[in-house]
């Protein structure tokens, strides 16, 4: 399964495409289970990039764990949570708050 991620243009914050917009957390990202869905996400990403909403758009591997979307690769897990050495920063901190 794939999900669409990028960084928001104005502040650079990592975002994921979910429910018709760009969410600040990965949990509910729109999944693509087949090639057609991946193409659809990619087209959305390309449009958002062209519209200067986001930069560094990527389709990444993800899985669903306990009904929550999680990226597969460590790099993307860290993007989704924040630095592993600073639990007080990034998404993980916002979630805890």
């Amino acid at each position: 399964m794939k999900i669409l991620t990028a960084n928001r243009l104005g502040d650079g914050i990592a975002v994921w495409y979910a429910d018709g917009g760009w969410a600040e957390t990965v949990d509910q990202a729109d999944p693509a289970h087949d090639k057609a869905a991946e193409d659809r996400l990619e087209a959305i990403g390309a449009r958002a990039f062209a519209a200067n909403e986001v930069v560094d758009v990527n389709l990444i591997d993800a899985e669903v764990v306990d009904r929550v979307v999680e990226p597969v690769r460590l790099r993307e897990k860290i993007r989704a949570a924040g630095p592993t050495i600073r639990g007080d920063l990034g998404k993980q901190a916002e979630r805890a708050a």
Partner: protein
Amino acid sequence: MYRYDEFDHDFVQARVAEFSDQVQRRLSGEITEDQFRPLRLMNGVYLQLHAYMLRIAVPYGTLNSKQLRMLGHIARKYDKGYGHFTTRQNIQFNWPALSDIPAILADLASVEMHAIQTSGNCIRNVTADHFAGAAADEAADPRPYAEILRQWSSVHPEFSFLPRKFKIAVTGAERDRAAIQTHDIGLHLKKNAAGELGFAVYIGGGQGRTPMVARKIRDFLPEADLLSYCTAILRVYNLYGRRDNKYKARIKILVHETGVEEITRQVEAEWQELKDAELKLPEADIRAIEAYFAPPALVDRPDGDEAVKLARLDSKGFSEWLDQNVVTHRHPDYAAVTISLKGIGDVPGDASDSQMEAVADIAEKYAFDELRVSHEQNLILPHVARADLKAIYDALVDIGLATANSNLISDIISCPGLDYCALATARSIPIAQEISRRFASLERQREIGELKLKISGCINACGHHHVGHIGILGVEKKGSELYQVTLGGSADENTSVGEIIGRGFSSEEITDAIETIVDTYLGLRTDPQEKFIDAYRRVGPAPFKEALYAGEAKAA
């Protein structure tokens, strides 16, 4: 220290205005990311994993208290309360919004700072010995020449689109603390038999995926010829350096592929065309720049010896810090202090906003308003009276920056790694923290003695692992982090590239492996004075391989 003249002020202000306009046009969608990316990189703005990152230049690592206070202010107002000091003696902030960067640059300009040429294929921040101007062993302060190089290289029209980035370092001492042989150009300022100043010139050093030790192409270049000779080197590189492959584009590859004799011939031939023209530095100009770096008026403070002696008796912590983090100054009543940004278990090179402000206060009160950033990611007070050392120590204790580990195993260079960096393949900071905690005992660290451990989270080697006595390179293998160990690297006057010792280690195994290496060294050194690097050079890798892997061979 150097003060901006009218030209510098106008130049930096003009750049702030220009880049602010570019940011506004990007945010409004007037220019595309493809158009904007090279512009932002020219101004030190990267996009990392979590956010943008802004790298700010600290020319030759020299700061005053006002500037450090401003960095603290930026950390607090625009970032998340901290900054990261880098191996190029710069500082980077990990979380700025693009929309805030014009305001940050305006704040920086107000204290004569900027982020120009901290990225891109141009001549980067020129680095220098962090004890410059204070060291007892230097021929002269290298920073005036670093400043001359800064002025020459800033938006140099001919050298703004090089095949790849270009790094220059200058040292003024035989004992190289600026790692000049790992640079594209390394300059060793020295005096000839006649007492004249000049440079030994090295080219083609570098780390990254193809580490190389620089080659000396000239033993003595008169100081007046600094710019004409560097221009000749850059011209040869700009003309012949490879542009077909990013990974083969540094001058080290050109030197390697051309051969040092031939490239020396090319540089010398180019220089013949340039040496007696307008790039020759007038004596008066060199001395005028030098005047900016005039040392502070160091009045005699003979009370220092007695004060230090008494304070030693009073405080074990002070005594240990004195032994480890305080070095001899050219003036006997003074010393240079290393403020360790490597507290046990801390993130190497990170400092909080309030720590920056407090260190600025200490520098203003006790250190003639002068600070340095070292390429080993620490802060330095280059000139302090020995009589004030105890007060400085106490002030550092109050802010958690009195760790007495300079040059010991927990004084680790580490890149940001996969916790922040978009290029990284593995984390480096948590490994540094775990090793630091494992070797937390100062007694044990001091028994081990000088040991430079350096960690990079990818092959680009920002953490200088190739030249660590012990180097650790984090890579990704089958979806997991794997740490490869190199031994025998060194970044001083006897620069060497470390050798890979064997198969890599998982994140769970790596600290044990480092401990095995250290214990092996302790077991084979001839006496406690034989440093790790000297012992390694004497015995080679075999005993370390045996200790790390012999069990496996038997098991297999």
